[in-house]
């Protein structure tokens, strides 16, 4: 009986193991099938667009595909003098072909991003170079427009002569390629993006700090009062979420404008005179105030979810051991809320850094952020390569922040609710 049981046990064990493995695999497959829609969703709405953004920021085929011969002939150009006849002859071949195939438009647009006036120069030259049938092309082009005799024109062509290029990133940090191919700063009155990145980070930090300052007491109150009151407070925090972003932003204009609620109130109180109306909107103040209000729930909710789990007894215990209320708050309560502070801050900061609708509406002259310029290059100038480069730099900045956070606080401590 005993021996029999032993052999049975071995066989049984093997079978059991097989069964277990099978069932484990089955549940794995089921689990995978269950997350498949989500994976597909993430692939389509997240991985592909971001991949395409990164790709567009380095991919510049427009000029290479159309001015193929010119780009090849320009390889040996030293950048000191105007190129020689072979380059002009190649340009003539390319332009005649571009006219037949109607492909010169995008080339003119692309070159115009790097040098104003290239649009009309290309369009004009395409029209007129066909009339030159013999003789040298260099004098013919110089006859059409003297700008072909400037190195800056050729530098613009060369900047766009690589299919895979760093040129968009160079532009995105206020620099350009000169005629020798060196990276140089653009003129002072054209520098804008670096300042904007700095401003965006600064404004986002200020908004995060403001949200923390306002959100911490609210979250504490919600965690401290009985559930029925905290539910009410939770609704009060979430209520703005159910209102359209545009409506909320526009209400801020109504409240903050020169003839708005706050200015009227201050005048009524006699704190400012009729001439001393404060400019609270259409500037950076407007951006910070409106965005802090819009992003506040993203700070309150993680804080609340963390504070809910901290027993109030801890504070009582600390105080019964002789700590002052301030000391027990600083050494016992605050450290326990760190995961919530970290999660809320990182959430608010990341959302703020990419915002553009609110700054567009209330930011005026001084409250514009980098997102507004990405939108501008997407929608108006159609310089999608530059928009991609600006977006990629922003993305890299956020990843760097995430990395630093992981190193200092630890990402596993992040608690989102």
């Amino acid at each position: 009986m005993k021996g029999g049981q032993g052999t049975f046990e071995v066989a049984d064990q093997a079978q059991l193991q097989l069964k277990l493995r099978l069932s484990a695999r089955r549940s794995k497959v089921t689990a995978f099938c269950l997350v498949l829609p989500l994976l597909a969703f993430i692939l389509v709405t997240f991985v592909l667009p971001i991949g395409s953004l990164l790709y567009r920021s380095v991919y510049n085929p427009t000029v290479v595909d159309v001015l193929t011969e010119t780009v090849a002939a320009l390889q040996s150009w030293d950048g000191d003098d105007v190129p020689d006849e072979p380059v002009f002859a190649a340009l003539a071949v390319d332009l005649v072909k571009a006219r037949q195939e109607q492909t010169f438009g995008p080339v003119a647009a692309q070159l115009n991003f790097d040098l104003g006036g290239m649009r009309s120069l290309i369009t004009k030259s395409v029209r007129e170079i066909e009339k030159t049938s013999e003789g040298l092309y260099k004098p013919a082009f110089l006859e059409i427009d003297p700008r072909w005799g400037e190195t800056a024109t050729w530098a613009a062509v060369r900047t766009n002569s690589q299919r895979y290029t760093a040129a968009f990133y160079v532009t995105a940090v206020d620099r350009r390629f000169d005629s020798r191919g060196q990276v140089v700063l653009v003129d002072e009155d054209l520098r804008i993006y670096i300042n904007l990145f700095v401003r965006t980070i600064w404004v986002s930090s200020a908004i995060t700090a403001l949200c923390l300052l306002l959100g911490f007491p609210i979250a504490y109150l919600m965690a401290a009062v009985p559930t029925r009151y905290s539910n009410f407070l939770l609704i009060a925090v979430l209520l703005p979420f159910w209102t359209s972003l545009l409506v909320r932003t526009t209400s801020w204009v109504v409240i903050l404008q020169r003839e708005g609620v706050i200015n009227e109130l201050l005048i009524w109180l006699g704190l400012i005179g009729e001439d001393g109306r404060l400019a609270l909107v259409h500037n950076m103040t407007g951006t910070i105030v409106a965005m802090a209000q819009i992003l506040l729930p993203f700070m309150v909710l993680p804080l609340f979810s963390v504070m809910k789990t901290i027993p109030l007894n801890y504070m009582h215990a600390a105080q019964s051991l002789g700590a002052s209320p301030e000391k027990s708050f600083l050494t016992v309560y605050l450290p326990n809320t760190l995961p919530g502070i970290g999660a809320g801050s990182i959430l608010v900061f990341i959302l703020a850094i990419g915002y553009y609708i609110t700054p567009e509406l209330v930011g005026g002259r001084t409250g514009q952020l980098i997102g507004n310029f990405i939108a501008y290059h997407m929608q108006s100038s159609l310089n999608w390569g530059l928009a991609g480069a600006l977006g990629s730099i922003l993305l890299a900045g956020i990843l760097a922040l995430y990395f630093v956070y992981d190193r200092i606080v630890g990402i596993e401590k992040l608690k989102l609710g």
Partner: protein
Amino acid sequence: MKTKIHLLTATAGAVFLALAAGTAAFGSEAIKVVSWGGAYTKSQVEAFHKPFTAKTGVVVQSLDYNGGLAEIKAQQDTKNVSWDVVDVLPSDAIRGCAEGYFEKIDPAMLPAAPDGTPAVKDFVEGTLMECAVGNILWSTVFAYNAQQFKGAVPKTIADVFDVKKFPQKRALQKRPQNNLEWALIADGVPANDVYKVLRTKEGVDRAFKKLDTIKPFVSVWWTAGAQPPELLASGEVAITTAYNGRIFDAVQSENKPFVIIWDHQVWQYDLFAIPKGSRNVKRALEFVQFATSSKALADSASWISYGPARKSAMPLVGKHWKTSVDMKTQLPTAPAHFNNAIQQNIQFWADHQDELNQRFSAWLAK
């Protein structure tokens, strides 16, 4: 239980109706005409869309956009062009044509004037393009709220730039176009030379230097055409640049005390274009032919104070649909308004908008 059933029937009915409405609007005999919204779109619906539907039975669906070629580019990149006719600015018409976004339109296909003058000779010079047909002339002007001025009022561009005489708050459009032109005018450059001066680096510097002088007095930089009348009405600013039609509309329909400064108005025009890949090119073209006929253009001037792009439409312009003001006196093209008007130079801006936009943005941020 009974209420539940009622609710169900009601919902089913609503869904059915919505579906039916949907199919009607998206059927093959419907075209989508895209324009700029507000009072302007209303003028087109009244003068173009409704009569066109009455005549041909083709339903016209009206959509709004904010200009630019981005949406058309996106529709063509994804091979899903849903727009049939788009109201575009000349710069976009030129660019869209060169880059292959629009169908070519042969001017010989457009209807002649009532007296038989062919379309080519009837349209105001420059408003017929390879891929687009002009519809209206409009202008950007300065306007002020009369309530905010006691005594002297600004009458010229130089007055607007005179912050000692008029320290009131101003609003300007957040783009270099027009602002640079006016800065030079205020600095004493004759209207005819404005673009010649702007083509030089020194000229651009000079314009920005002049803009520096009013920068502290500009409290709002507007972006949407609906903003200027609101800014004037709320008292946020006393003087603003605006599209002339918007100010006219606020004065006529809301009795606002706004006054237009016609001195050196900068005029340009809008055009109709047909995106390549439109599913209904034939109908779209019919619509363009109908809407740019002399009568339709003259009718649209009864709804908004924009001038027709056809010379033969001018004498046909009638009274405002509601207040019966004689519209001939209200258009940018009225002789009293037009004597020192500047035509926005499309070629200049097509060439220099990229760099000047960047410089303008950098200047604004300082």
